[in-house]
């Protein structure tokens, strides 16, 4: 071990995480009667004893330490508070085990692992248990009371059965099982008589087996349900053991328990004899999936059942195929013909495949690279003589060993065994992502380069591998850079991070920035966000950092306005609206046309007043005018209201220097008032007619005087008036009035329209009257309209106008106009000649 312990292990609270995890030590100065005045130091070491963290313990007395599955250190205090620290001694969070504990104090606590995560169980001064099966999702369960429990149980443990955590406790000769609702007495099957108390109990790593140590020195081993006894052993030592843990290998038939006293270690199992070791130093046992880790001040060892493959090969005088193959390979290297003999022997038995498999498997269980190599070499040698041996098991083993050796290096200090290697990760819920968890652990230890090398070695996809690690690295850097180098500017840090990351896929700069912001480095966060290619991603963090204006421009910069982006823009807008006063809010909007138009669209339907304010603020009098005009149609019913709205609009138009619109609006006000009066005086419907229609309606109603007055008031041009009157009179079929009108003065629109309108009303007689008065240019047209083809032809010939001639010709039909047609043809020929 690399550590330099000042304290004796026995004076400390010790916690070691499974799967080769870290070790935490805290000198237990509270156990003594008088609290020591010096504060203890909490130290965290890697499994190889490399110091990872050391901090002065400033909180209350600690009852127990333990590691969670995510390698967080849980420190259970006497008052029921649980403090959570990271691997590097960084404080993460804390939670409490309930109020009841405050009074009664915590007597004892256990941290245990289940398939959902890590749980905490405590025993209070009132001899009640409380547990939480998953500290990540804290739900406290107070376990039922044990009847007539007067003193602390002599020992207890947590069991996990059917995904539910139970507590098993021993009081005197009785065992009680607590589940959520009930407390029941249980008796182990086939327990030897004469037990008056249980001194120690141990549950196996997978919660399947249980071992009990009694005051008679008797050990009972059976299933966790206590219903079946596997074996028993009498060790004749009555002293209570310091620790007792299971030591068995998954899928192995052998069961064994390791019991440790002060200076003695005993392995007992289904055999009449036990194996005993002498402990030179104070030691501590860590149960593992496939064995027991034993560490002391100077050493760290692993005790486990020898795997079958290793046993077969290395047993003295073994004739197992693997052993022969290993021998053959050795001889082969010595260039001895014995190699062939061994090989033949295996082949004759037809066991070469098993031999190779055995060697490969045994290599996995070896910790010494040299031994691994020689076994693998033997396997590869054997493979040469096999036709179709699938190579992947060999290749995978080489890869796995390489990774394992790398992390077992004492600098790294994660002594995983081969059987733990794939298993380790199942524990962590990522069932398929085993390697991911290993990488996470490396990242947690800030061993970024090794993690990246492993990714590259295993050719993991970038997103899962390298870039994820780089992102972690960057987050770490963002958090801690200036702690290391004081005078580096935020800009430089951001650039340095960017240089390393580039635009590796899967790296999210906004995540890194969020991390930087999390430790109060807002400026760095903003700089980092600059590198975020998806500007939409920048927005939420900017908002969080109260950089709403920047957020708005980023939200818009993302260019598109799909749902997500719109939501973003709207969110930012609402943020801004609450954050700023109205004036500043509008000013900000003004610089963002896209957001402005979006917001305007929204206001138009939902918040009309805001829209008005918006225009007001902008001095956008033109739009303000339009706004009021719209209002005069939509919102107002009463004439007075409408006129008032129009007046406001007109004022706005004046301000916008849009005289035309202002005048037009004023005219409209006049017209409205007038229409109102007309309705009052004459009845009928005038409101909302156009000026033209108003006048026409008057004429049609026979109010010629009024019509003319109106035309004068509103300066209706003569031409329009003529068109208007013409249409209105024709509508009335008031031919007399029409004729009078036509003669009132020279028509400004000519007389062709008169002809046309009469023909439209199918009054050929009247039409003819006007046809004669039509000016020369349109005469042909007029004559054709009234159907006088012959005369039209004459006029056209007279005009010597080719187009007119063709026009007439096209009107000549059949026999009736035969003569005329001829005439025109002749005239046309003449014209063309010229």
């Amino acid at each position, binding site marked *: 071990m690399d550590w330099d312990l000042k304290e004796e292990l026995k004076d400390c609270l010790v916690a070691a995480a499974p799967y080769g995890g870290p070790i935490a030590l805290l000198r237990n100065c509270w156990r003594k009667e008088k609290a020591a005045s010096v504060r203890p130091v909490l130290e965290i070491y890697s499994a190889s004893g490399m110091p990872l963290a050391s901090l002065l313990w400033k909180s209350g007395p600690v009852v127990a330490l333990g590691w969670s599955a995510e390698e967080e250190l849980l420190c259970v205090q006497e008052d029921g508070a649980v403090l959570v620290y990271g691997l590097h001694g960084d404080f993460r969070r804390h939670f409490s085990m309930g109020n009841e504990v405050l009074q009664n104090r915590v007597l004892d606590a256990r941290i245990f692992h289940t398939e959902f995560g890590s749980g905490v169980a405590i025993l209070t001064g009132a001899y009640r248990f409380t547990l939480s099966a998953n500290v990540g999702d804290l739900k406290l369960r107070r376990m039922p009371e044990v009847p007539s429990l007067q003193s602390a149980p002599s020992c207890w443990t947590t069991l996990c059965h059917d995904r539910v955590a139970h507590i098993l406790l021993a009081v005197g000769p009785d065992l009680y099982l607590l589940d959520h609702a009930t407390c029941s007495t249980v008796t182990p099957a086939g327990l030897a008589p004469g037990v008056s108390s249980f001194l120690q109990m141990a549950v196996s790593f997978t919660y399947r087996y249980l071992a009990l140590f009694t005051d008679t020195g008797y050990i009972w081993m059976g299933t966790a349900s206590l219903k079946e006894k596997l074996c028993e052993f009498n060790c004749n030592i009555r002293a209570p053991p310091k620790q007792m843990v299971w030591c068995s290998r998954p899928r192995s038939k052998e069961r064994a328990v390791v019991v440790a006293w002060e200076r003695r270690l005993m392995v007992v199992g289904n055999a009449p004899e036990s194996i005993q070791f002498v402990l030179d130093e104070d030691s501590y046992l860590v149960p593992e999936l496939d064995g027991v880790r034993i560490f002391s001040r100077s050493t760290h060892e692993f005790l486990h059942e020898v795997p079958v493959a290793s046993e077969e090969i290395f047993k003295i005088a073994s004739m197992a195929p693997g052993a022969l193959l290993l021998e053959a390979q050795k001889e082969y290297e010595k260039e001895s013909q014995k190699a062939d003999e061994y090989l033949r022997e295996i082949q004759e038995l037809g066991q070469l495949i098993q031999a190779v498999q055995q060697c490969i498997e045994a290599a996995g269980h070896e910790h010494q690279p040299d031994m691994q190599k020689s076994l693998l070499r033997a396997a590869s040698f054997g493979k040469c003589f096999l036709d179709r041996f699938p190579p992947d098991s060999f290749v995978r083993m080489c890869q796995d060993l390489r990774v394992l050796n790398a992390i077992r290096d004492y600098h790294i200090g994660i002594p995983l065994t081969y059987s733990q290697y794939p298993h380790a990760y199942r524990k962590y819920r990522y069932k398929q992502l085993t390697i991911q968890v290993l990488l996470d652990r490396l990242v947690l230890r800030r061993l970024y380069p090794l993690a990246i090398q492993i990714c590259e070695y295993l050719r993991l996809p970038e997103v899962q591998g390298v870039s994820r690690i780089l992102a972690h690295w960057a987050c770490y850097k963002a958090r801690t850079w200036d702690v290391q180098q004081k005078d580096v500017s935020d800009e430089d840090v951001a650039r340095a991070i960017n240089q390393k990351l580039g635009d590796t896929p899967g790296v999210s700069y906004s995540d890194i920035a969020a991390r930087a912001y999390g430790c109060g480095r807002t400026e760095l966060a903003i700089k980092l966000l600059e590198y975020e290619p998806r500007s939409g991603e920048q927005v939420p963090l900017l908002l969080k950092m109260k950089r709403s204006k920047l957020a708005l421009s980023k939200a818009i910069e993302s260019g*598109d*306005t799909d749902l997500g982006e719109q*939501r973003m823009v709207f969110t930012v807008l609402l943020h801004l609206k609450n954050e700023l006063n109205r004036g500043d809010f509008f000013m900000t909007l003004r610089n963002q046309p896209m957001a402005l138009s979006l917001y305007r669209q929204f206001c138009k339907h939902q918040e009309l007043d805001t829209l008005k304010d918006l225009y007001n603020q902008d001095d956008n009098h033109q739009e303000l005018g339009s706004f009021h005009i719209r209002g005069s149609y939509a919102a107002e019913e009463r004439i007075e209201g409408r006129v008032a709205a129009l007046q406001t609009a007109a004022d706005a138009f004046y301000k916008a220097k849009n005289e035309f619109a202002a005048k037009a609006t004023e005219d409209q006000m006049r017209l409205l008032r007038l229409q109102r009066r007309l309705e009052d005086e004459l009845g009928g419907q005038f409101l909302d007619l156009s*000026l033209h229609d108003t006048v026409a309606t008057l004429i049609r109603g026979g109010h010629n005087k009024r019509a003319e007055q109106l035309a004068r008031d509103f300066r209706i041009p003569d031409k*329009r008036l003529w068109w208007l009157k013409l249409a209105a009179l024709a509508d009335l079929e008031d031919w007399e009035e029409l004729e009078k009108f036509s003669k009132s003065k020279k028509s400004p629109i000519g007389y062709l329209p008169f002809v046309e309108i009469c023909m439209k009303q199918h009054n050929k007689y009247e039409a003819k009257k006007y046809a004669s008065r039509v000016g020369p240019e349109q005469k042909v047209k007029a004559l054709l309209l009234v159907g006088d083809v012959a005369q039209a032809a004459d006029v056209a010939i007279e005009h010597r106008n080719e187009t007119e001639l063709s026009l007439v010709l096209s009107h000549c039909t059949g026999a009736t106009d035969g003569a005329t047609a001829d005439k025109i043809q002749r005239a046309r020929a003449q014209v063309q000649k010229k």
Partner: protein
Amino acid sequence: MAFPHRLDAPELPDFSMLKRLARDQLIYLLEQVSAGHAWLLSCVNSVALNVTSSSLCPLLPGKKDLFIEADLMSPLDRIANVSILKQHEVDKLYKVENKPVLSSSEQLCFLVRPRIKNMRYIANLVNADKLAGRIRKYKVILTPQKFYACEMVLEEEGIYGDVSCDEWAFSLLPLDVDLLSMELPEFFRDYFLEGDQRWINTVAQALHLLSTLYGPFPNCYGIGRCAKMSYDLWRKLEEEEDSETKGRRPEIGHIFLLDRDMDFVTALCSQVVYEGLVDDTFRIKCGSVDFGPEVTSSDKSLKVLLNAEDKVFNEIRNEHFSNVFGFLSQKARNLQAQYDRRRGMDIKQMKNFVSQELKGLKQEHRLLSLHIGACESIMKKKTKQDFQELIKTEHALLEGFNIRESTNYIEEHIDRQVSPIESLRLMCLLSITENGLIPKDYRSLKTQYLQSYGPEHLLTFSNLRRAGLLTEQAPGDTLTAVENKVSKLVTDKAAGKITDAFSSLAKRSNFRAISKKLNLIPRVDGEYDLKVPRDMAYVFSGAYVPLSCRIIEQVLERRSWQGLDEVVRLLNCTEFAFTDMAKEDKASSESLRLILVVFLGGCTFSEISALRFLGREKGYRFIFLTTAVTNSARLMEAMSEMKA
């Protein structure tokens, strides 16, 4: 008579898949039960992607009443008709309108566009139910996408928790073999007038869908800000989802995006090609038209689907109207002759004839009589003197002579209250072709207009000015100076940030100069033979080559904007062109002659006809994608402010 395609003309991709996808998604949304999942597996990734949002939504199985927004009825009918809806647990259908709701169903489903007024309607309904103590399930399906503002309204009205919102990504309706419409007429006003960019995402999504279904586009061209934004967003979508489509063979070689505001002139002209004329006269809605009694020569109206499947229509749709009648009568004679063949037949032949040909002939006969009826009806309206004068004035405006006379004509048009929309159209045409009206005319025409058609049009004029459709020449100002300044600003990278006010300034048209550069007014010696057109000008009686189509022609010829700098500058638009050689290498020579033209803000049937003609001449095939089929009247209506 209808021009045959060149023999080597490329085949069009099959767009009916789009319909199928839309229908399946809708049904899935309506049913939302696990059994409906099967289709998910069978359809393309991209569409599955569109659906993912919905798969999270609560279920609404069982009978339900469906409320449909009026605008969505015709498009919906093309996708899933009533009987299909009924098969999928829709009980009764209602139109979304301001009437009390009589539905007694326990579940109400609303199929609407993402508009605030629709949300209000739903909110009122839900709140009324609440007041009455009635408990129902509500589901809102927004198409083609959700807008956040809509959800915000639901939230403000306090019913966000009561309704579930879904998205039906139905953005492409194949109206014809070569015409896809997004059926979003409001795109034009929302973007070009209100500056609302939300629909751009819809466009990008639609393009993304097309490229996942029909492979990537090796060549992309575009002109206009909206085109550029849509393109950029589309690219982003493609990058985000680096799917397997990358390796796909392109089926369509080119895509060309253009903004409607780069060429208002073409859209404002009266249409004289048959399909356009039918649209102008009867209004084609969602690919079908309602022929009234005057056409059907019965007492009933008839809804007729106008597309390539209508054999008669297919042959005349792209024809100048002057040829159509002749063609139809020829056709009638042929038909008669075919009927007549049966005279000399024996029994067997007759049996054959009846079972095989008669049905086809009858069908053709029916269609023929319909189109003849339509022609007559159009003739009645259009061959009157007024129409001739109108066309004459339009041509004068396009060519830029007799401006005073044209102005007078427009004034008379207004004075006589011929039609508010038509008058407005002529004013806009005058303004655009003349770079704005001279101040005196600007005032007097507007005054006349207000007097004739009502003062509320003051707002219409304000809209038109903002959109750059009807502007005033800056008095005494040699336009070019201002223009140079503005165009510098606009071509700058910061183009996106120029405010509305600026863009209306920038929208000065330089129609005359562009027309000269691109030779839009063909020199004609003698009569232009409309029967055998020689250029795209035939769609406007040989007087004018549509600007939009000419630009497309020029860019495709050059495969870039090279040499068109001056035109682009005059158009005051951002242009872009990208070619992906890697993709182009993969494309077959046939697919390289397929061009998807995307009109943002709508396209007219005249433009479609012109490009179809161009395609035949050059051996291309054009596919059209438009936000909606438009015409001059629709454009003007979009800009008009009507009394509430």
